[in-house]
């Protein structure tokens, strides 16, 4: 093995992306970071967890939210980077990702890690999708909600994730050109997908 490597996973909700990340981590014996990133960022910066969570939940970066969400200063001509702005919180999370990556090989799920680590060598960027039916079923099971609710929730989350990724990474969420591999987990099932990714990862990182 030559040095550290990173696998960054973007995923549709209900596609099993997190599970795939965790299984990959087990196989490779490295750590998989998902929501813990928020906790670490909160601990490192001293800023409460709920502020990061709130920034995550923003569903749009549209004109409307620009008007009423006040993402910038009111004062004429003055540019102020507000400490609790989503941009600043994203920066804090990015610093945490860089710090973790400096220490060890890891897998990052979400948080635009592929963009944050774009200058870091040995990254494999993956996007995981799945068929709509599989996703709703999975979601309904995991969250104990009806399939109808799951479908609704799914559409909302897709929108949020796309808005977050597109704004912060300046790339397009789920578009093939934003990643190295895009894979539909319905095609082979979770475990086979993990194996496939492992195969590619080993080739690329010369493990």
């Amino acid at each position, binding site marked *: 093995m030559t040095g550290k490597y990173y696998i960054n996973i973007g995923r549709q909700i209900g596609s099993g992306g997190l599970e795939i990340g965790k299984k990959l981590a087990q196989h490779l014996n490295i750590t998989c970071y998902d929501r813990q990133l928020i906790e670490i960022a909160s601990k490192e*910066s001293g800023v409460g967890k709920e*502020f990061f969570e709130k920034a995550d939940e923003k569903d749009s970066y549209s004109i409307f939210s*620009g*008007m009423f969400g006040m*993402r910038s200063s*009111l004062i004429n001509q003055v540019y*102020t980077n507000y400490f*609790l702005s989503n*941009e600043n919180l994203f920066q804090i999370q990015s610093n945490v990702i860089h710090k973790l990556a400096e220490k060890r090989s890891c897998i990052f799920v979400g948080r635009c890690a592929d963009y944050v680590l774009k200058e870091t060598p040995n990254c494999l960027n993956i996007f995981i999708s799945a068929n709509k039916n599989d996703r709703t079923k999975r979601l309904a099971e995991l969250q104990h909600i009806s399939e109808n609710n799951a479908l609704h929730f799914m559409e909302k989350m897709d929108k949020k994730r796309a808005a977050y990724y597109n704004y912060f990474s300046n790339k397009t969420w789920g578009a093939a050109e934003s990643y190295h591999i895009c894979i539909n987990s319905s095609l082979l099932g979770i475990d086979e997908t993990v194996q496939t990714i492992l195969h590619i990862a080993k080739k690329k990182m010369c493990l």
Partner: protein
Amino acid sequence: MEKKEATIALGTDNIWKLLLQYAIPSVIAMTASSLYNITDSIFIGQGVGALAISGLAITFPLMNLGAAFGSLVGVGAATLMSLRLGQKDYTTANRILGNVFILNLILGISYSIIVLTFLDPILYFFGASEATLPYAHDYMEIISIGNLITHMYLGLNALLRATGKPQKAMLTTLLSVAINAILTPIFIYGLNWGIKGAAFATMLAQTAMLIWQINIFCNKNNIIRLKKSAFRLKRRIVFDSLSIGLSPFSMNATACVIIIIINQTLTRHGGDLAVGAYGIINRVAFLFVMIVLGLNQGMQPIAGYNYGARQTSRVYAVLRHTILLATGVMLLGFIMGEFTPRAIASIFTPEKNLIDIAAGGLKIVFICFPIVGFQIVTSNFFQSIGKAGKAIYLSLTRQVLFLLPCLLIFPSIWGVNGVWASIPAADLLASINAGYLLYREYKKTKK
């Protein structure tokens, strides 16, 4: 690393020390930019005449609207720029710079064309009379032709700050104030160019600074610099920066509408001199308000960080300190306005009639100044702790929601004095409102 240490200091250092450290640079910058307006008004009032000051006051909303268009692009682009720089994404950062350049070009030229085409009707609508129109026209014509330069200058200055060169941005502001202050008297007294001289001086000062900025951004040693390839507009950059800039833009645009209404009402009830008096009062009031806005900028990171870190006592400590300082500043304005109004007004004009009206107005308008500091700081406080909606609301109460009804009712009863009285009345109501919201917030965090 440096950044992290600064963050920790926000949570541990002495509040007074932090507040002064963060506030002093912004207070200087804010004071400088309002001095710019004040010196222009003084030279025009003293060198050209009382009607010229009225003519100048008629152009305020148009000038502000121009600046508002500048902030529409500049503020959003600066936010995006610092986001990209934080990620060391220099390709996109360069793209943003190039796009800002082009966007300002488009907006700046369109604004000039529209304003120049309809200049006289616009000025009449804004409250100009046969007597003041020539002054307003002469001044605005030059300012509109140079509007593109103003846009570019303001836009690039915002980016200069965002690209980690706040000292250079500050120096640009200070230098343009200085150049303007030197050239204006030469043009007005030496060359007898009248009000046009003031406009020329403004444009020359901004042109000089724009050349300097472009020079900085073309420097080959800079990571962020103007490149031909970056000029092509990118939909996402344009969309994102405009959407971020929309809220400062709409606040500025709303403020313009209010000034138009004030000017129109004053023309109706008090004639040209009343408009000129408002021009003087507005400039003086603005100076004090800008200093408080500078203090706000200093409070922002300290309140924001500590609120995030749930250090409630530090959050309210910095708020208290800022309110204390702001009240001190506004109290100074209050004392000057109440006890030496004639002295202040006579800085701007030798004309006795105008001094009388302006002094009377100052006394009324400044009457609530001791509590206005509290109101402005509180509304910014809400933004600092991430409650943008409340901040917008509080800002609107003072400048629109409470002011507009007063402006529509009072003048029909008390004439010109009614216009003056509307302002402190709105200030008072808005302060009470802000106090109530702050009290509720305080109770909530105490629980």
